[in-house]
């Protein structure tokens, strides 16, 4: 018993007191800023492994970006990644950062369904479906519930069955072999249910985009309530995205 207390004492306080305003340690590739400097735009576009960069005007799509940072190494004066981890949105368009823009990414309140803030603002249970995910987003979603991030303090938790859940969180590019299990899981979730896409692979297919082993038809059938970019998503990105979704009102 005394040994246990000693261990507890040695561990100290590990939780991040305010996860909505925490500082990111070290370097982190969060929301990018592209300045208006003139460069060879074709060369800039060609660097990107997932075609996230477009020209006229120069922009980067965080739904496609794998956050490898190679564009920032090649053109350090053109683009830089900030440590701003609040990069989720419920509108796909808002994930596209254009030249000269430097403002926080937010949710579009007019797209948040009324039921969400009505029912889920104090408690949200989620069923995670790994549909071809590489286990990195899964590791980070697990980390959301650990003693550091402690997502449970907001009443947000992952549950074992879709029947206990208010929504599903999809990771991975959705493989053909997972398309049907994903549909069954969604059907088993009671209404009103929400869909969250976690990670670049889920949002756009990422590096797997266009692979014949995928079947992303599911995504065209339903409204997506939240897009959480990242490869993998950072726990702070995920927690803040969800909090904004359930707290923001029209």
């Amino acid at each position: 018993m005394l040994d246990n207390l000693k261990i507890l004492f040695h561990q100290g306080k590990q939780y991040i007191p305010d996860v909505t305003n925490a500082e990111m340690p070290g370097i982190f590739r969060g929301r990018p800023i592209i300045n208006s400097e003139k460069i060879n735009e074709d060369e800039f576009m060609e660097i990107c492994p997932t075609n996230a960069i477009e020209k006229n005007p120069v922009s980067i799509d965080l739904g496609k970006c794998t956050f490898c940072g190679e564009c920032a190494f090649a053109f350090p004066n053109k683009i830089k990644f900030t440590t701003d981890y609040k990069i989720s949105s419920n509108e796909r368009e808002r994930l596209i950062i254009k030249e000269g823009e430097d403002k926080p990414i937010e949710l579009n309140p007019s797209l948040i369904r009324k039921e969400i803030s009505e029912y889920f603002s104090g408690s949200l249970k989620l069923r995670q479906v790994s549909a071809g995910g590489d286990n990195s987003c899964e590791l980070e979603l697990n980390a959301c519930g650990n003693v550091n991030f402690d997502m449970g303090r907001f009443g947000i938790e992952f549950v074992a069955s879709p029947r206990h859940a208010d929504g599903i969180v999809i990771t991975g590019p959705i493989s053909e072999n997972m398309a049907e299990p994903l549909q069954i899981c969604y059907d088993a979730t009671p209404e009103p249910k929400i869909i969250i896409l976690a990670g670049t692979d889920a949002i756009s297919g990422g590096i797997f985009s266009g692979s014949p082993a995928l079947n992303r038809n599911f995504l065209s059938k339903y409204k997506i309530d939240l897009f959480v970019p990242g490869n993998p998503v950072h726990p702070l990105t995920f927690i803040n995205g969800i909090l904004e979704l359930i707290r923001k009102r029209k």
Partner: protein
Amino acid sequence: MKNNQRISLPSIPTLEYKKFLEQNVSLLKEPNNHCVNYYGFPSGGKIKLLCCIANDKEGTILVSSSYAEQNQLLPSFTNYNLAFHIFERELHENFGIKYSDHPWLKPVRFPFDRADKNSSSRNYPFYKIDSEELHEVGVGPIHAGVIEPGHFRFICNGEQILHLEIQLGFQHRGIEKLFLEKKIFLQRTTLAENIAGDTVAGHTTAFVNLWESLCNYKAEDDLKFSRTLALELERIAIHTGDLSALCTDIAYQLGSAVFGRLRTPLINYFQIWCGNRLAKGLIRAGKNNFPFTNELKNILEKLLHDYENDFDEICKEAFSLSTVLARFEKTGTVSNKDAFSIGTVGMSARMSGIERDVRKSHPHDLYSSFNHQPITKNHGDVYSRVQIRKEEIKQSIGYIRKLLENIPQQNKNRNPLSLSQPDSFCISLVEGWRGEICHCAITDEKGELAHYKVKDPSFHNWLALALAVRQNEISDFPVCNKSFNLSYCGHDL
């Protein structure tokens, strides 16, 4: 050939199938030899079979080849050596090659380009026992936790598991084909990083070492340093997370919380170093975007010091509790004989006294400087796998401290990577935290990538889990599963 050596494709001996079979099967009678890869690829209307047998004593890899035709009926290697079962199942699934004496040509992963399109996870006939006293339990593909999908079908006598059948393939993303389709080098590196998110350093190192060999590029010490350091840090981080998960599964709350929180500073260190908690973006062929500095060294030394104190304290407490030991000891046992016969690698081999470790037998990067001695246990139970993790963490901390004594200078005038050489074959072995990772590549007459093959250690080891749970209670399955912690995405590809 040696690990990471490029050889010319025509120099690989091509044997008549019967001779090919005899030679490779007889090679495996020697206990120092094991099969690291056996696969096929289309070549001139036929299927070229390529078998790579590693000699762990000499540090060499023996490669031979043969030709087979689609739908041809052949005698199997598996009939002589069970370790080949999974490779031949894959050949059957991909190319329709039939075997006259293979015990069970069970589907491996239902790839999109499989030979028999009618075979799917929907109509797959699971093994059945006809009995009124036994019952079946099916789990998945979506599991209860936040983990990847796979289907487990148990046949139980009351609480006791008689048989477990594992069906995978749900995570199949077509990675090997994408390696050929994505022509830009960075795309291929990104693919390697996304094979398995828990083994980013492992798979990416295998890929870049292979690629540098194909381009005749000699990596400088600072590149090797970063890769070795990343591999060992990844090993410590994942092992620590596994110890936490194992404590969770036996409802030991303190261990679960403390090991869980001890993982955080380690993966945060990757973020401090390269901006990503799982080291995505860190390892690149022929360059280093994140040179290691003295400041990084100081942070890491402090981190390891703090980590080790807390780690030792919780280990001492956890492994003296009879309630913890009672759940770990003699649970999920795989005998040395079984582990050897099915060709396990990594921790899943070392738990049963099989000393199989690429760091010792085929050292790459800076491993030859460590005089590495693999940690082995003899009981093959959950506790052996727990102890291996605990001791490997301490061993890796030692290696990192040794690495930090001598940080190589960054080369600022590096030669750019040239084009990959034509008509070549190259194999790259890396000891990831889970075990032996093997990447193989073949280039065509223009030096373009013609075939790419990835093998995760889990490919060998899933059968070990199925054997481990026999005669155990079904309630012990989670702790057995977690003690192996095998990869779904690395297997399904």
